[in-house]
């Protein structure tokens, strides 16, 4: 079942899905291969292929066994991998405006103190990094980001909070996040963005997808209020920059 000694493992997930596992760890190269395989499968979809779910390190592929047997799908995936996945991505880049601190970013001061830096220094560090959307999961549109500077890694809270707002900018372990819908969370929160990662009323309800690149830009309360109004009017106000 293994494609090659260094290739991914293709593991059954019952009778209607399989997992193409490139690694059991988090790294950008692995995630690029996951996203590339998802795109290759989308471009060469065999009849009976249903969905692909890119995650940090594996691609979940669902299928209808009445039309496509798992054994045949495995062979298709092995051929795609052997023939070579695209090396270079053409990611979309987006700048996400963040109002740091405030009632949503209520862990900012404590986190800065724990790290022995000023809140301003923490903000500058968080906003200096380039992040990769490793996966969308857990909640509709919830973005798991890689690329958090080492100095900002922080374990989750022992007791999760019952409600964290949509748009909250979080840190959990070595991951960063942008929350998409309100809900419970044990991550630390340092601010909020007026952007909505998920809005079922929009023509495209989802702002981000796996493989996108994200940067954060600090904004002040006045700009946040202006953006809040624009978002409320249905203007997404995302700043896209597609790299070719």
């Amino acid at each position, binding site marked *: 079942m293994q494609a090659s000694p260094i290739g991914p493992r293709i*593991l*059954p*997930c*019952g*009778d*209607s*899905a*399989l*997992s193409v*596992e490139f690694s*059991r*760890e*988090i790294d950008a190269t692995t995630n690029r291969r996951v996203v590339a395989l*998802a795109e290759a499968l989308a471009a060469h979809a065999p009849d009976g292929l*249903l*969905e*692909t*779910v*890119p*995650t*940090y*390190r*594996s*691609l*979940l592929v*669902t299928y209808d*066994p*009445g039309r496509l*047997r*798992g*054994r045949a799908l495995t062979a298709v995936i092995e051929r795609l991998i052997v023939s070579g996945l695209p090396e270079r991505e053409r990611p979309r880049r987006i700048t996400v405006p963040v109002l740091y601190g405030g009632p949503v970013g209520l862990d900012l001061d404590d986190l800065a103190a724990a790290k022995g830096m000023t809140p301003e220094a923490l903000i500058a560090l968080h906003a200096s990094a380039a992040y990769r959307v490793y*996966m*969308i*999961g*857990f*909640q*509709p*549109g*919830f973005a*798991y980001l890689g690329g958090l500077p080492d100095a900002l890694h922080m374990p989750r809270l022992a007791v999760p909070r019952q409600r964290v707002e949509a748009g909250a900018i979080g840190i959990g372990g070595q991951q960063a996040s942008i929350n*998409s*819908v309100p*809900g419970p969370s044990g991550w630390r929160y340092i601010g909020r963005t007026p952007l909505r990662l*998920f809005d*079922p009323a929009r023509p495209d*309800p*989802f702002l981000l*997808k*796996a493989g996108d690149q994200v940067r954060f830009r600090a904004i002040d309360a006045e700009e946040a209020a202006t953006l809040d109004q624009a978002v409320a009017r249905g203007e997404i106000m995302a700043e896209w920059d597609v790299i070719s």
Partner: protein
Amino acid sequence: MSRLTIEQAGPMLTVQDLGRPGLLDRGVSGAGPMDPAAFRLANLLVGNGEQAAALEFALFGGRFTSDRPIRFAVTGGALDMRIDARACRPWESHFLQPGEVLTIGALQGAVWGTLAVSGGIETPPVLSSRSTHLRSGLGGLEGRQLAAGDSLPLGEPNAAPLMRLSAALPRDRGPIRVVLGPQQDYFAPSVLARFLSQPFTIGPSRDRMAQVLNGPVLPAAGGHDIVSDGTVAGSIQVPASGKPIVLMAERQTTGGYPKIATVASVDLSRLAQMPTGSRITFRAIDRDAAEDLLIEHRHRLAVRLSGLEPTAGA
């Protein structure tokens, strides 16, 4: 537009249709019914297409009224059901007139019931589906469980006759079949053997998202935290408690616990319908066998669903 009104709501009463596929990569759970075969049948019994939305409930249904004559059908298990004081049977369709009260009592030997109404429930679709996903508040009525006083819009009725199923839906017996993996190598051979030989019971902690099993503890030598990857309905996750959790229709799309096995699709609704406290064992089969079972099950189901017959005297 005519409406169905809920006078009393059973537990976990929600609007469902066949679910919200196609958006797993955007973090959107498929949702949909806990017992898809029984759900589809309820719609067919009232002349609806299979995509129509109906109500799903757990344990007992509640009381319902309508402001126009409707046909309805309840499927899922045996239960006590009445129109006013008049007893009527599940697994076939009946008329409910304005002014009459439909009372759907407790399911016996089953957990999840479907109430389908001619014309279907016409709450606004969200992301192309009316299915309620409670945790993200999508679909149904405001994304939430239904409560007494809620009133739901109904679609245009059709002219189908009252119908019943000529023979019971196929339901297998015996161990719950599973395909091992994708992380069975996190577990020592002795733990895998325990999983496949010792009985478990269905614990009281269960809902549309997942159900927890009580029984032998399953420690993972490889650890109980994995880098999150995708889940499917039927994934059996094992968190640090060592108690297996079977993911169901409303599961989250990704998870961070090792998955020891996946329940075969043919046995997942059987597992969902087992009352709390039921004893189960697992048996491992390979993927090809699980696929064969599912294909065969679909054929048998299609034959049964084509065998609806008009109710005598209707």
